[in-house]
Every structure is written in C-alpha cells, then in structure tokens.
C-alpha cells in the first residue's frame, strides 16, 4: 500500500476569532500536481503554509513522508517540536512565494546557493555548479550575477523556483506564484512550473490560473470558508463540477 507524501488529517486553525481551517483532510501523492483554488479567505494559503509550518496548526495532524510535522506524540499528549527540529522538517518542502521574496542583497546565483551552502553545509563550488544548472533550467543562466532589483518580476520568480529546487525538496509549495506578476510575464513562470511538473516533482499550488490547473494539475481542490468543498481530477472538476458552490466560483472566475 503506497503512502501519501503529505497526509493532512482534520487540521484546524484560527486566527483569533476567524476560523481559517475547519478540520481539513487531504492526501497528496508523490508526483502529483494538486492545485488549491478558492476565494481569498477560503483557507487555501493557510493550508499551504501549514505544510511547511510557516503557520502552526491548532489541532489535527500533518504527516510529511510519514513523519508528523511540528509535534511529537508522547503518552497520549502532543508536544511541540523545537525550532531546530522544525527547521529540519522544512527541508523537505520548497516554497515559492507570491512576492518572490528573493534576498535583495545577493545575486541570483547567491540566492540559489544560500540554502545548500548555509543550511545543508555543502561546498560552495559544488553548490554553484548545481545552481548554474538550475538557473539554466529556468532559463536564466545569463542572469546569474544580476541582483533581484535588476530582474523583472517573472525573472525573479523563476530564480525563486530555482532557489527552492536547490534544496532538493520532495515537494514544492507554490503560493499564488503568478498573482503579483504583470500579465505578459505570467507565461514564462507557468512554463517553468509546467516543466517541473513534467519532470515528476510533487507540487501543491495555490493559484487563480485555471488554465494552468486544467493543463498541468492532476487534481484540483476547491476550498471555501476553511473547508474543502470539492476535490477531484482537474479536467473533471473544472469542466463539470459537482457542487453548486464550485460551479458558482468557477463561473465568477472566468
């Protein structure tokens, strides 16, 4: 019996009065591309951030590669892991942010090797070779020595993807990767993501780009008010959704 790469079981999270996630459960299988869609405030970004523990959960559990995230069960009670252990667990996920979050005081190359060298303690020369390869893969080899401020939004996001890949993660999380881009730059990023999907990377993508979801995603999950309304194969859900709410959302998005 295969195990899912990510197993989310009855996860809840509130921010003060506002309940962002209500007992959400979901499996992500290795090699899958899953798109999370829904309105803002539906909990999709919160769910994403819970997977790499940028946001901590209130109850329930998330297992990554069979390991419970952020918590240790002992004698029927749950204890939070310390900072060092959480950081180690994060190494298995890469994350690409909506606002790229490249380190402005480093070149593209330096951004990409920062994790491998500083965190994984790998040799700089080795890391640089791999980084150049990754930059080539995202189509930015000639921009290796450019600073983020010298790059367009689309270029920065592609460097961010290379940076996430440099850590050799088992899955890459995308938080609305193209929402902050000018329309003419969206395509180049989606192309890279498509290539990544084709190469077999497990991807969890929060996005509004339904065209991308239709083309690339294996499954689409529609969330509303902190819960999963409907989940299913991308083509099925997007063309013939079963739930009325899903239908209403998709109609509005077009």
């Amino acid at each position: 019996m295969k195990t899912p790469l990510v197993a989310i079981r009855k996860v809840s999270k509130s921010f003060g009065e506002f309940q962002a996630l209500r007992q959400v459960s979901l499996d992500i299988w290795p090699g899958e591309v899953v798109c999370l869609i829904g309105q803002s405030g539906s909990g999709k970004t919160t769910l994403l951030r819970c997977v790499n523990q940028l946001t901590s959960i209130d109850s329930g559990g998330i297992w990554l590669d069979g390991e419970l995230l952020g918590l240790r069960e002992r004698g029927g009670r749950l204890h939070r892991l310390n900072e060092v252990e959480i950081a180690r667990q994060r190494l298995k996920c890469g994350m690409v942010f909506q606002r790229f979050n490249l380190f402005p005081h480093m070149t593209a190359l330096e951004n990409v090797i920062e994790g491998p060298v500083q965190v994984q303690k790998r040799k700089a020369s080795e890391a640089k070779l791999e980084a150049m390869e990754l930059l080539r893969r995202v189509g930015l080899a000639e921009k290796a020595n450019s600073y983020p401020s010298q790059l367009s939004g689309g270029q920065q996001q592609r460097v961010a993807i290379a940076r996430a890949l440099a850590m050799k993660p088992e899955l890459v999380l995308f938080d609305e990767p193209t929402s902050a881009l000018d329309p003419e730059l969206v395509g180049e990023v989606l192309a890279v993501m498509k290539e990544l999907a084709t190469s077999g990377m497990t991807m969890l993508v929060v996005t509004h780009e339904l065209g991308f979801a239709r083309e690339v995603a294996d499954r689409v999950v529609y969330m509303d008010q902190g819960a999963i309304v409907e989940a299913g194969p991308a083509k099925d859900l997007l063309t013939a959704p079963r739930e009325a709410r899903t239908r209403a959302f998709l109609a509005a998005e077009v």
Partner: protein
Amino acid sequence: MSNAPALAEGFPDLSSLKVAREPHWGRWLTAIVILAIVAAIGRAFAQGQIEWSYVGRFLTAPVIVQGIVNTMVMAVLAMALGILLGIVVAIMRLSPNPVLKSVASGYTWLFRGTPLILQLLLWFNLALVFPTIGIPGVWTARAVDLMTPFLAALLGLGINQGAYTSEVMRAGLLSVDIGQYEAAQAIGMGRLQALRRIVLPQAMRVVLPPLGNEFIGLVKATSLASVIQYPEVLHNAENIYYANSRVIELLIVAGLWYLLVVSILTPLQMLLERRFARGIARGGR
C-alpha cells in the same frame, strides 16, 4: 487641411511673450537684514574682550590636538560597542523568549532613563561599591586599577549608546519585510541564522543613516567624559584655562575643533543617507 482641433474665437496668442523675472524684493530685504545682523554680531565678537591671539596660539597646541584625537578614538570605540550591544539587545527584544525580552526592555529603560553624565560618574566611581572585581579564586583585580578614565568613559558612553542604538536596530529589523524571514525559514534556516544572513544585512541599510546621526551626537557627548578625567579635547582645553584664566578663548578653541569634526562628518552622513536610504527597494550592494 490639418488635423488640429477646432478652436473658439476670443483668446489671444501669448506664445511669443516671455514670462518676466520676479524681482523678489522681499527676499532681498530679508537677506540684507540678516547679513546686517550677522555683521553686527561678528563685529561685536571681534571687538569683544576676546584675546584672539590666544585662540590662534592654542588651536594647534599638541595637548589640544591630542585631545581631539582622544575624542575621536573614544567616539569610534563607544559607537562600535553601542552598535554591538544594540544589535544583541534588539534581537533579544524581538525574541519569543519572554525572559530575553524583559532583560532587553530593562536594559533600554535603565540606560535611556538616566542621564549620561550620571552613568559616567557611576562607572568611574564603581570601586566605592565594588572595591574588587573578578571571579573569586580565578582572578581578581582592584576596581580602581581596572576602571581607568578610558574604560569608564568607554563603558559609560558605549552602554548608553547601545540603549539608543537598540531602538534604531529594532526599527530596522522590523522594517525588513516579513517575507524575507519566511523565505529564509522556507530554505531551512533557524531564527538566528535567518537574522544573521538575511534580515540583519538588509536592516543595516535602513539603520546606517540614523546610526550616522547618532555617531555625530556621540562625538559631542564624549565631552562629558571630561568630568571623569578622560583627556578629550574639552578636558584638555579646561586644563589650559585653569592655568591661564583664558576661559572664553580656550572654549572657542575646543568649539572650533568640534565644529570642524562635525562639519566633515555631516556631508559624509548625508552621502550615507543617499546611498542607503532606498537600499531595500534598490537592492544591490
């Protein structure tokens, strides 16, 4: 026929007329008045009972030059200590650990809440409270041997400066977009590593201009160390006028040196500001 839009009648063609320069009589008048006042003040000083020969004679006296050197040395060292403490305390203040947070707040409260001159006097006279300092059995020293005017001034000025610098640093750290910290976490960095590699370098660009300002203030604050016998320029100027009673003349000498130093530092400070003020947006070096 041209594609220009149709125009109504009745509006003259002004395109060949030039706009006359304004005479700005008001400004001329103000300028003359101010110049007259400045000239009058200058004349009063020139005719006043100041023996300018003494000013000239002592301006480059070895003990005065040594004094301003000591001033600058102390300012630089105290600023370095202040920045170091400021960074540490700011990080403590932003820590999730409530103990560290309280200690940091306490330090800032204590050293911003008391006058600098009081702190200098306390450091210098520490031996009245602790005659010996050290670890019993390992190493002890007499407090007076340890607490020289130099060390007392350095500790007094540096630790006081640290309390102010920590607030600047804290603002700087908070000014860095939280996304930077999250991106660092996302590649597996712990809090301190993220601070050190990603957040602090970006914060430094934001804090460098206000720190430059603080440094200029510190240069002048070193004059307080004169009361604990640190031989900076004011102290040495005082010694001269204690002997020859030329109070105003020697104070002018010291004042001129301070003016010189600050006049050099201020444009440097403005350069710093221009280079780094938009550092975050510009990225790069």
